[in-house]
């Protein structure tokens, strides 16, 4: 390019920039929420098979039903239980019955009034085997029945005290639906569940989208909502876009306004784009961690467990593969759980210490490949990986850990498996390492993951205690914590339990369960619920 041609080009370019910035300045900059408009939400999670989260009960159902169903209670960002459909609650001295005072001004969107009988019908629906609820059913384990004390007071009768009851009831899988609507056949209720929420399900075009329209009679936002009254948006188009790359392309093109299930590389790519904002909302419950199966050799020896953990260079792997989109965790619990205890010192990367521990444990020989050997047996561990649950970056992370633990003499066999085969391997106790996410509100998740009762498989073969911790003292602490309602004492017990788990080297914490959203910057007022980090579009408005 010659000099004479450059100048006009520069002038053209700079005038274009002036024009563009002029446009940007003229763009609407409202501070008052604007009413109206349709927001397009594109989810990368699976399309639910049923829009009623009582049936089954998974995360894809939770994110969409947050828009049209509501629970008895919620939580604020400080982790405190707050009023929602119930305004007050009291627990009897024996801990065996809870009275919930309900709002008296709420009506389901089919016109049915919200009463104590409705709450009783919902609990009965969740506990009915024909509903096939798994998540909600488990959460109501200790609830025997619900009775109406009066029209707006519901009494939960328990078989044993349950300090996690409020946490359980705050989850979207235990939302309250119209009892009249629940009477319909399940296929019908799955397509058009009826709740009290700010939006109403009006259509479901399978493999494409669910249409949600504003509930104009809405009165019952949770206590921490940003505004009162009805939602700002006219409607939501809830699209199913399974492919990560095209989902992000659709967001950049403005075809959609919000996307979820955002991968680390996409988060980094979006950082430079002023038209796109990022929400990082880790899920509650357990942190993402590698569990060491303590029921079989070689991890039945605590020294070998510690050696493995010392020789795994997690910090470098997390920063290089997740590009700083996730913080390293040193806790059994998610960072949003107030009861979480971190023990960074236990997880220092130290190959020398790992070697010393293995020598002491009798793994003194080495074979030609550099793997440790004891009594003619190689130090070999199987690590089945669920490709449905671990994102590609996480699988790469496991590969890096495989190579750093090799330095200490571990042979880690990574086996990528589909979900069914993965559960099959776990059910047969044919694994040494495993990584499985677990979402639940509150520290009671520790009881599910580390109580010896959880090593007994459910009828389906499922069990949650993959580290197979069987410690009567720990069981007693977890049982006690789940029964008492004194908050301080409860926290102390959970801290004690976590110390036992971390000091026993049963788990290698990685990071919080990741949950990222990207949205166009003219989408205002979107927040995630402090319960299970589902997005709520009640306060959301479009600045355009």
């Amino acid at each position: 390019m010659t000099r004479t041609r450059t100048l006009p080009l520069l002038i053209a370019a700079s005038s274009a920039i002036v024009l563009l910035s002029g446009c940007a300045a003229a763009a609407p900059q409202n501070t008052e929420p604007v009413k109206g408009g349709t927001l397009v939400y594109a989810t990368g999670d699976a399309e639910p098979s049923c829009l009623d989260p009582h049936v089954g009960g998974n995360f894809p159902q939770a994110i969409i039903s947050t828009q049209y169903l509501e629970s008895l209670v919620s939580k604020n960002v400080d982790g405190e239980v707050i009023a929602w459909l119930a305004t007050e609650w009291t627990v009897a001295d024996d801990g065996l019955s809870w009275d919930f005072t309900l709002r008296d001004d709420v009506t389901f969107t089919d016109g049915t009034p919200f009463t104590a009988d409705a709450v009783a019908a919902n609990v009965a629906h969740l506990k009915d085997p024909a509903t096939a609820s798994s998540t909600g059913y488990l959460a109501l384990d200790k609830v025997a029945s619900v009775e109406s004390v009066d029209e707006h007071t519901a009494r939960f009768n328990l078989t044993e005290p349950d300090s996690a009851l409020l946490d359980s009831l705050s989850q979207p899988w235990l939302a309250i639906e119209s009892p009249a609507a629940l009477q319909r056949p399940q296929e019908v209720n799955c397509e058009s569940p009826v709740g009290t929420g700010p939006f109403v399900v009006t259509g479901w075009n399978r493999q494409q989208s669910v249409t949600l329209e504003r509930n104009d009679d809405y009165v019952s936002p949770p206590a921490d909502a940003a505004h009162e009254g009805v939602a700002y948006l006219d409607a939501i188009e809830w699209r199913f876009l399974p492919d990560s790359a095209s989902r992000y392309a659709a967001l950049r093109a403005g075809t959609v306004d919000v996307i979820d299930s955002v991968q680390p590389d996409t988060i980094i790519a979006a950082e430079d784009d002023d038209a796109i904002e990022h929400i990082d909302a880790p899920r509650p419950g357990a942190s993402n961690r590698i569990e060491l199966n303590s029921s079989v050799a070689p991890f039945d020896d605590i020294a070998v467990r510690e050696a493995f953990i010392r020789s795994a260079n997690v910090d470098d792997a997390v920063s290089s593969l997740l590009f700083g989109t996730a913080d390293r965790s040193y806790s059994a619990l998610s960072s949003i759980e107030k009861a979480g205890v971190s023990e960074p010192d236990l997880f220092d990367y130290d190959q020398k210490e790992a070697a010393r521990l293995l020598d002491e444990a009798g793994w003194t020989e080495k074979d030609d490949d550099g793997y440790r050997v004891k009594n003619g047996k190689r130090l070999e561990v199987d690590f089945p990986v669920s490709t449905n649950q671990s994102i590609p970056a996480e699988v790469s992370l496991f590969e890096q850990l495989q190579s750093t633990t090799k330095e200490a003499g571990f042979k880690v066999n990574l086996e990528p498996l589909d979900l069914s085969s993965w559960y099959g391997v776990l059910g047969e106790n044919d694994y040494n390492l495993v990584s499985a996410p677990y979402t639940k509100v509150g520290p009671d998740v520790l009881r599910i993951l580390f109580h010896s009762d959880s090593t007994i498989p459910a009828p389906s073969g499922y069990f949650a205690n993959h580290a197979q911790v069987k410690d009567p003292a720990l069981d007693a602490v977890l049982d006690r914590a789940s029964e008492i309602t004194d908050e301080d004492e409860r926290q102390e017990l959970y801290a004690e339990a976590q110390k036992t788990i971390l000091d026993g080297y049963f788990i290698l914490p990685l990071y919080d369960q990741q949950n990222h959203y990207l949205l166009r910057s003219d989408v205002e007022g979107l927040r995630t619920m402090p319960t299970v980090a589902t997005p709520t579009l009640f306060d959301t408005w479009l600045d355009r």
Partner: protein
Amino acid sequence: MAGSLTLDPSQLARAGGQRGRQSRWLRWLLLRLGGVVFVLWAVASVTFFALRLIPGDPAEAILGGPGSQASEEALAQARAHYGLDQPLATQYLVYLGRLAIGDLGSSYALRQSVVSVIGDTLGPTLVLAVLSLAAAVLIALTLAVWSTRGGRGAAALGSTLEIVAAAVPHFWLAISLILVFSTTLGWLPPVSVPGVAGLVLPVLTLAVPLAGFLGQVMREALLDAMESPFVLAARARGEGEGGLFWRHALRHAAIPAVGLVGWAFGSLISGAVVVETIFARQGLGRSLLSAVQSRDVPLVIGVVLVVALGYMLVTTLTDLADRLIDPRLNRRAQQA
């Protein structure tokens, strides 16, 4: 290509006049039908048993997939409801009996009848497949004609383009097309939207690799034909180069291409699994993918049967088309 499918009226008259021909056609048709029924039975049986051999309880698939923490009561209820508590042989016979009357059962995961799921998704996939096939033939023909008539440079470039196009995987092409035409140029939506604009990228993604294959075959056949004795004879009769090419050689080139259409249909359906997922289009391929992932046995078998049926239909039609384009096949049949 539609032009090459026209029937020679004199041939038809001859065919209608002969009784032996008729019975031969009938026998051919009956054999075909028998074959279709046999293949459908085999496909249904193999899929049925293959899906049962995979570890995992089908009742779990019904209750929200593997690892669901469903209670024993819920599992028992689901088993009884879907007849999974019966012996496998009984389940198989009941299944075949229902299949015989066209009842494909109901999907575990979608809680809808398989027939209605297929009814909803078959249309969009057929639209995608037919448009892609048409686009592929158009691209292939253009490339083949241009590269055989455009001189040495065109021939080299044409064959390179065909090889590259044929080798490109669908998922890579789809993402590249999105990057170029949607993200960079902003001409087309990156995911399916109602209307023609949403169809362009999915159709191109399926059509380009197919056009690569078809183009290679067509170019070979064209070159072959232009050098064959019948073209020499026509040239000797004083037929012009243009007429030679368009009237004689092109018809010759259509034969292998039509033969490939059956195969192309299969490749389009497998490509649809990828394309429908990336562009978030409604369709049979996407249903099949999610059904396999969630072990939704009735839906997997239903989709596989429909695809098998479609495949056989297309191969039968291409056989017929071959006979119409290439009179030699009919004459051979008569001599037999």
